[in-house]
């Protein structure tokens, strides 16, 4: 039995989660709260296994709630209506979230992932990443990469480039190491859109801060700080130059 609580400042949102839980016998709702303070208090008393956490709770946020705990022995599933910023933050830290209005399929999928065995072990690491990312600028963020073997936290700055491998992605790092993710390169190129990354080719996403040189010619290449040369697709050249020039 999974003992869950809901923290959301809108009653109808609470009701819709309660409603969804009714069709899942393994979950029992132990309480619902409409402020961060009440939620924190209840968490300490009830010690739930799972918290459904709204992102914007009156003038506070779900992040404020998480900051109140040193360790996190409970699963967290964020709920939000339309907050691209928050969704990106969850993707960066590999945390679970539901988009309102929540569909049953979405709900089932998230429950399945929450109950996966190693999920709780790495949770504190993922929440730390989330909270850390709130305090730094975009190019100083960290990203949590999950694969079947491990959860790895990477600084964006230590990523040289990402390479697509069918539907998976390899991260090539400054220390010459390689990290594997089962997500597509497109996922990461969208995630890193506002950081200094650029897709130079169908299979390469490069960190512009690690581009040492751009060689003109046909084809043209970018030379990375570790000496690796990566071909630039002709259709991506103009965009690349623009990004390199506007590099911040």
């Amino acid at each position: 039995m999974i003992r869950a609580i809901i923290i959301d400042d809108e009653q109808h949102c609470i009701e819709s989660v309660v409603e969804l839980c009714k069709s899942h016998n393994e979950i029992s709702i132990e309480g619902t709260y409409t402020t961060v303070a009440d939620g924190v208090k209840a968490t300490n008393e009830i010690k739930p296994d799972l918290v459904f956490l709204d992102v914007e709770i009156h003038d506070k946020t779900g992040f404020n709630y998480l900051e109140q705990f040193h360790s996190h022995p409970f699963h967290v599933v964020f709920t939000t209506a339309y907050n691209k910023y928050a969704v990106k933050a969850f993707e960066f830290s590999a945390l679970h979230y539901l988009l309102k209005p929540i569909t049953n399929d979405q709900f089932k999928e998230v429950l399945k992932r929450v109950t996966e065995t190693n999920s709780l072990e790495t949770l504190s690491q993922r929440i730390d990443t989330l909270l850390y990312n709130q305090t730094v600028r975009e190019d100083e963020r960290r990203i949590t990469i999950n694969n079947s073997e491990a959860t790895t936290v990477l600084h964006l700055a230590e990523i040289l480039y990402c390479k697509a491998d069918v539907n998976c992605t390899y991260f090539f790092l400054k220390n010459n190491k390689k990290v594997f993710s089962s997500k597509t390169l497109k996922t990461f190129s969208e995630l890193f859109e506002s950081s200094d990354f650029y897709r130079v080719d169908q299979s390469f996403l490069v960190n512009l801060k690690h581009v040492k040189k751009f060689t003109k010619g046909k084809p043209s290449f970018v030379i990375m700080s570790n000496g690796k040369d990566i071909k630039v697709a002709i259709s991506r050249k103009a965009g690349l130059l623009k990004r390199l020039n506007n590099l911040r």
Partner: protein
Amino acid sequence: MFVMALFISTISFSQSLKEADSIESIINNYGKPDENYVRLRNTFVAKKLFSTPTDSTWLSYNFETLDVAKKLDYNEGKVLAYGNIAVIYQYLLSDPYQAIDYNLKSMEIINNNNQLDVYAIPTLHNIGLLYYEQKEYNKALKYFIDALERIAPLNNRKDVKTNITSKYYSSVLVNLGNSYNELNKLDSAIYFYKNGIVESEKINSYLSVANAKSGLGLALAKSGKISEGKQHIEESLSMVDKHNLEFIRMPVYINATEVALANHEYTKAENFASKILVLNKSLNNLSIETSIRETLAKVYHRKKDYKNAFDALTKHIELKDSLTSNDRKLEISRKEIQFEADKKQLLAQEEIKRQKLIINTSLFGGGLVILALIIGSLLYKRKRETQFNLKVSDTELKALRAQMNPHFIFNALNSIGNYITNKDGATAKNYLNKFSGLMRETLENSNKETITLKEDLEMLKTYLDIERKRFSEGFDFKLNIDSEIDPENILVPPMMLQPFVENSIWHGISGMDYKGILKVVVKKEDNTLLYAIDDNGIGRKKSNKNNKGHKRQSLGIKITKDRIDILNKKKKTHGSIKIIDKEIGTRVELRLPIEKEFSDD
């Protein structure tokens, strides 16, 4: 009004490549990092930075220095590294707010370490300037005042070189004058200008004196003391001529125009204004031209020369429209510095040597930056024309897409509304979930110029899923993508087909008593992308008859046609749309240029 804020760098950025190279070799062969290592790295940056502004690794280089300084807990090293990072953000990356942030980090350390207080003044002064350039005068004031308050106790200390503090002292005073002047707090402005002039004279900085006098002249004239103001402007003008202070010639002329105008000397004002326009021809600084056209309009108006006044005003408005905040940023953007830096480096160095003789050595770095600005403006001029045309079309394209969304939303909401009245809640909920999914995709894609064909088709499918539920009979949807087409690599403008599909459903299929079929084909034809929809509906003729003979073209279709026109104009392509009446039903053929996200053609 235009008051020039003068720059003094935190560290003297004096380029000396030979020295830089020898320092670099020491750094490269350095053993265990210590404080001296940090000092060397910081000095190296100060010596080399502006000679290779194109190198995008400068930032990470400085962050590395910062890391070493942090590990050693070497505060002075941290302060200098933060200062360097701020300079990079300010001048190479044109990101003033980041520059402010890093200067603030520097201040935090300085405030906690008494022995570092010499660095407080340049840092505060720089923050003030950064805010001043962003026209946030109140914030600028706060930092200039803070700097001013810290100078007094330093003046009495023996271990601090007096000439350094007095250099900043004069500059802070003049910049306080400038800030108050911009805020129209004229008494304060006049007070600080006057003190600033006294201090600038003490260190023989003609540039600073002339600049302060020009500002003072304007402030006096604005507060009604016109003849006194005129006198200061004239002194400033003669200093500019005598000492060849080209950097501030234009701002001084601009103030002179304003003062002449206030003094009802219209011919004189007109003369200055024309001189500015001539000077600006080579610089092509849009914001200067914009403001001077406005001034000219005032001059002509007072002279009762209404035709010229009208012309000047029209020009002013045209320019103002084209001058967005973005343009301002463009003028100082890294792009220009980068392109021209290598080519003009020799020229720049010579120019700097000349400046060095004229101005105080400390203005060295500033001179280079201002020169880079001038070079930047020149380059900007060349780009401006093509950019402008493109921008017009771009805006139009955005406006059109924005128009499309509400139309699309209300049609869909209408469908849902019908559904809720007729069917049960559970299905309505399901419907709503689909709709919210589509809204999400629409919101995310609507500000993109292109999306992949795959994404576009997925949106279309979601849309059709929603529409299909409206019909008790439903309709069949067939999608056929030619194997030559890779939907993940082809880029299309988002939702071009949607109005036509909508039309097929609402006006074609909805009026039928047999099962509807909607067929979408995507293929390559004559090197263009053919995106076609076939329906077996009642056709346009009968549909119009049903609508009581009103020949009405849907708003969505009109917008799609406009979008194609603009795309054609913008990308010089031959996109087209053709509506064919078949024996049964209608066929719409949309042809777009094949645009691949990743291609080597």
